[in-house]
């Protein structure tokens, strides 16, 4: 993977909060309620597969995706969603618009999150390759409330780095709302960062505010929790594409150590 770009160097930071960004999001909110086909929402659409990884069960993979998905599909139907152990692979598509710094173009990202339940992974050999073969990005999840899930990261990273050297890799610490009860202190995170030079994000995938009907999730309220993940993912993917296309020089430090 190329050296990660500095945050905000590829995409206009906080563009989703600008009037223009909101207009795009509104369009997604409207459209994704009705449409699954006809996904070309913008002249430039970047399509990616993101494989979710997490050694331990219950690190929050399902909740993260559900949060991102619900955010953009705020129908009452989804209010009944509860995290549950998954019995196989499930994929979820999330659209996210972002504006490029260099050209001021708006790009519509189509993230396809692939999530596989752990018991299925251990029971069925075909699951893991299926989840990884097409992946352009790997999101490694650990939970702030589960030390073992953090300590498993190096093993997981090593396994995937061999398989997919060109893919984007990001580490996501979930259950950040439980930070008071964390098993993963800040200094450990710092050490991990230095060793791996990977983007590291913190999320809380708890349900956002509800609308007046008491059921529908307020899409906008959830944005603040999720936007930084989607923006960061978009930024790294775009950067990686540019490097892969030879449009950006890949600096020497990038060779895996």
């Amino acid at each position, binding site marked *: 993977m190329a050296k990660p770009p500095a945050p905000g160097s590829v995409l206009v930071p906080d563009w989703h909060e600008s009037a223009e960004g909101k207009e795009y999001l509104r369009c997604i909110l409207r459209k994704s309620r009705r449409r*699954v086909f006809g996904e070309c929402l913008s002249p430039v659409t970047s399509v990616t597969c993101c494989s979710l990884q997490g050694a331990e069960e219950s690190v929050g993979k399902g909740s993260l995706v559900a949060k991102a998905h619900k955010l953009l599909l705020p129908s009452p139907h989804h209010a*009944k969603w509860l995290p549950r152990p998954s019995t*196989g692979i499930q994929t979820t598509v999330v659209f996210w618009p972002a504006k490029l710094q260099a050209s001021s173009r708006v790009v519509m990202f189509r993230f396809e999150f692939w999530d596989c339940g752990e018991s299925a992974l251990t029971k*069925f050999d075909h699951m893991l390759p299926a989840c990884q073969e097409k992946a352009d990005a790997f999101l490694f999840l650990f939970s702030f409330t589960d030390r073992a899930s953090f300590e498993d990261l190096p093993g997981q990273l090593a396994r995937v780095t061999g398989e997919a050297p060109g893919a984007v890799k990001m580490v996501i610490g979930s259950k950040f709302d439980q930070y008071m009860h964390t098993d993963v202190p800040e200094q450990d995170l710092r050490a991990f960062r230095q060793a791996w030079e990977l983007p590291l994000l913190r999320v809380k995938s708890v349900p956002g505010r509800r609308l007046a009907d008491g059921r529908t999730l307020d899409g906008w309220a959830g944005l603040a929790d999720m936007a930084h993940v989607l923006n960061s993912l978009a930024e790294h993917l775009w950067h990686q594409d540019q490097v892969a296309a030879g449009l950006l020089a890949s600096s020497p430090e990038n060779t895996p150590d």
Partner: protein
Amino acid sequence: MGEERGPGGAVHLLCLAASSGVPLFCRSSRGGVPTRQQLPFSVIGSLNGVHMFGQNLDVQLSSARTEDTTVVWKSFHDSITLIVLSSEGGHSELKLERLLQMVFGAMVLLVGLEELTNIRNIERLKKELRASYHLIDSFLGNSELIGDLTQCVDCVIPPEGSPLQEALSNFAKATRTAFVSLVVSGRVLAATEGWWRLGTPEAVLLPWLLGSLPPQTARDYPVYLPHGSPTVPHRLLTLMLLPGLELCLLCGPQPLLSQLDPQLLESWWQPLLEPLRASVLLGPGALPAGFPLHEDILGLLLLHLELRRCLFTVEPSGDKEPSLVQRRRLLRSFYSLVTSTHFPPEPGLPEKVEDTAQKAQVPRACYLVSGPEEPGTGWRLVALQVGPRRLLLLLSPQSPTHGLRSLATHTLQALTPLF
């Protein structure tokens, strides 16, 4: 009758390892809503104890009744014991027995028969069974579907001349998959011949499973077919074509989920966007839009006992009393009643053709007024059987008793071309 069933009625479901009596899980609901309330361990132990006691004396204890609670026991493969306690009135034994069959089917579907009959590590089995909780809970809740009870597949009928069936067959050929269906909120809209040949209970369980899951763009789930392939898993692939409408494939190692990419789906299904959209709206209505029904009809259950399909809707005049939940309860209880007492159990396999033809001449019917005795009050329930079809109607109190039979006969005639 079931209408007395209080809103606070509770259902407790227990699953134990038969040999050791170790509880594997307990699920409970109250008023159709899952609760965390647990039965005391001593109660669980006693319930299992009496069943085991009987077994040791070669006595099969299958059910018991107290003033307000019915208990049903059932052992599967001498390995798993399921026990259900229900204080929701109107629960005949038939209903609870079928519930247990469904629950065991759900366990096999997601975990496989091998793990359930050859228990090596109880803790691991418990963990694996967690994946089936949400499906099991959906049987304890107020489902919009009825296949759990009728053991027939819940269907919706596409508009006449719909191109979906043909498109589905062609898609199945192109992907070399014999088992393909379109499912709208847990109900089968169209399916290939192969899919319709699926045995019970998987034919009911697979669409039911989809109806119980949160929306996902696509899935690739290993499933064991309780009847057809309980030890070798198949793959259930689902692809969301529209919110609420999924394309399902039951297959072996091929095709890979990644081969069914958006471009492929779009080229197949984009031209059918309008009929697909129209079908999503059918959902709970089950009948084609504008299908003429008598205005007294508040709920309808049509079964084809040979094809093992059913149509169930309580949408007509949905703004009138009783509530939709109540209508479903009334029809469910009525179904249990007529099935366990008035009509013989469903014919398993079609008898000789001449017999069926003869039976077709002899409609059998029964009706029931539920609620207060005064004339002009109380919901009317009618059941009518003609050949392989059985129709149950819930009618408003205004519907004159003497006209019930002809109303049911006419309705059944109108519905007959649907399946």
